[in-house]
């Protein structure tokens, strides 16, 4: 069966189904239109979205403040006791703020420090490699479409799959240790050494996400008019100068957008790392979202108040980053 025949078969089934389904709403919507009038019916079109936003986004935002200021291990709001800022105090009490072990909630601070280091290194190296890759893909090469999709492919894989792929490669008797042994080196138990585990968590996270940022930077590079380069060539500007004075400044808006996007995503990293290392060894790769998840849901007793207070602090960081993003977007639109 050709793809055309397949397509017409699909639409032959799909179109009547779609029409029948949409037809179901014809009468109620017609009735509503007569009652409400033509412009107020817009609210009816908005209703499903607003109800879902309301239930699963706005209500939780308000409740989050409530949870953050109440204590106990009960999930039901009516069973919880008001404790004021105690949850925040508990999280923020430290003898020495530079030493997580001296803190009341040492795991929280460990997670904060880890997240800070992780985000700095992951975002820094990821943007560096994305930029190089975008520049290479923008050069005169054959099969650009193919190579572009090669770098993009891991972006589509699920975090669990990504983690399992690398877990298999990095395991004690994995292929990487196989290579080390064949080179005459001692095998390393990658994920049980704190430093190596941290390295691999960053590496895997870059592996999984850099394709997305490469794509955005590539789109930015392709938007730079070619005649700018021709002019530079006429003036026999050196390659470094061309890059430094033309490519980089013209790419700056995209770089900033990519930077903020990567920061927002990086701060919320959870899935791959949770499956790859589980935050271990010890708490060497524990990040903030995993701390929130474990405090609220997987470690007994479930401290919802502490988890909500930590979420709120994460929310403030994200809010600042998102405002920066909106500001940058506006700036790049205005030129």
């Amino acid at each position, binding site marked *: 069966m050709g793809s055309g025949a397949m397509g017409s078969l699909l639409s032959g089934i799909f179109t009547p189904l779609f029409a029948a389904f949409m037809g179901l709403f014809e009468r109620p919507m017609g009735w509503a239109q007569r009652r409400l009038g033509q412009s107020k019916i817009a609210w009816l079109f908005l209703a499903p979205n607003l109800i*879902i936003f309301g239930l699963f986004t706005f209500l939780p935002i308000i*409740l989050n403040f*409530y949870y953050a200021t109440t204590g106990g291990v009960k999930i039901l709001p009516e069973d919880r006791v008001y404790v004021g800022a105690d949850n925040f105090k508990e999280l923020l009490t430290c003898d020495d703020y530079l030493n997580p072990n001296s803190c009341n909630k040492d795991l929280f601070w460990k997670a904060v420090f880890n997240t800070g280091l992780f985000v700095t290194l992951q975002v820094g190296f990821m943007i560096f490699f994305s930029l190089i*890759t975008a520049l290479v893909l923008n050069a005169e090469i054959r099969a650009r479409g193919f190579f572009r999709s*090669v770098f993009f492919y891991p972006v589509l894989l699920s975090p669990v799959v990504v983690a399992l792929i690398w877990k298999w*490669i990095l395991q004690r008797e994995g292929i990487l240790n196989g290579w080390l042994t*064949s080179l005459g080196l001692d095998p390393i138990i990658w994920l049980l050494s704190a430093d190596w585990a941290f390295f691999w968590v960053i590496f895997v996270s870059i592996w999984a996400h850099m394709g997305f940022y490469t794509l955005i930077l590539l789109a930015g590079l392709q938007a730079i008019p070619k005649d700018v380069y021709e002019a530079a060539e006429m003036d026999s500007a050196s*390659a470094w100068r061309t890059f430094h004075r033309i490519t980089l400044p013209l790419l700056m808006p995209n770089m900033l957008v990519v930077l903020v996007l990567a920061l927002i995503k990086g701060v919320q990293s959870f899935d791959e790392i949770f499956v790859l290392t589980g935050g271990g060894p010890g708490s060497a790769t524990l990040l903030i979202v995993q701390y929130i998840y474990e405090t609220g849901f997987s470690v007994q007793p479930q401290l919802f108040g502490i988890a909500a207070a930590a979420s709120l602090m994460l929310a403030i960081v994200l809010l600042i980053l998102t405002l920066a993003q909106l500001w940058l977007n506006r700036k790049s639109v205005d030129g």
Partner: protein
Amino acid sequence: MASRTSTAMSFLTRTRGRNGPDWTDWLCYGYLLLGVFLMFGPVIWVTLSSFKSEAQLLEFPPTFLPYGQISVEVEGYDDALPLFEITAGEHAGKRLAQIRRIGIQAQMVDPADPGERIDIGINDRTPVREMTFAWSNYTDLFEKFSFMRYFWNSVFITAMATIIMLLFNSMAAFALSKYRFKGRMTVLVIIIATLMIPVTIVLVPAYLVVAKLGMLNSPWGVILPGAATPTGVFLLRQYMLTIPDELIDAARMDHASEWKIYWRIILPLSAPALAVLAIFAIMWRWNDFLWPLIVLSESEKFTLQLALNSFQGDLNTQWHNLLAMTVLTLLPITLVFAFLQRYITTGIANTGIK
């Protein structure tokens, strides 16, 4: 140093082809081939490994292809016996099956003459190997691991969530792009505001809401909270703004109802934007992890991602089945990508959403 950076830059920034390939081209292609190796290699390695039997997976260092030792059925023995080639001694060149190993001696038997036992030093024999595909890694998933249930759970959640999201988001986008009504700006601003609130920061209260609605351990608890994505509303609204209002005015002249205008005119004309959004929704939902992890705690409600995670968490990981399951989980997305890659990559480059 300066000259080195400058030559490195010349290959990164040149835009005009020169006569014939020079060393910067080689560097470019070298980088790209390294990329192919790094990006595809791990997936290929996992796929090849998933065809190895449990015994082959324990071999260290691992072989690249699924080579395994041949086993033969020998009369008088219940289990198949591993086959060896004898390398030294009076039996050199023969292929014998091993019954058991005692210290540095192996008790062996000639499959053609099962009556006689032969003792061979363990260093005088090498395993006879050939490429075998352990399909049982895959068939086990269906027989022992109720793979189809997880697969169905994932398909159901992905399909339902995508359909509901397209429907709700397109309705909202229609209202926000084609009507002038009081409060329109307020709604828009509210939707912009929700862009900033990922589920990660409202985990506890969102869990409570889902629990109160009785949707814990139900696929609907996973489907509904994410059904109204602000990104989707925006993408569709921007697209619908480009549809001329004259079409709607003409339809109203013909006494078409507002609902009919929505599904007969606006939806078909928004098909390209809907398709992009559908692809994203499928990817998001198929790969979703944290929220399902919180909502679904009964293993029979698990999605594929949760099932994979819980199997890998077992103390004695059954890698041969786990790898097969990993491959089956990445297969649908890989196929979608293989057919739609141009569409996906341009869609992302244009909209900047992931």
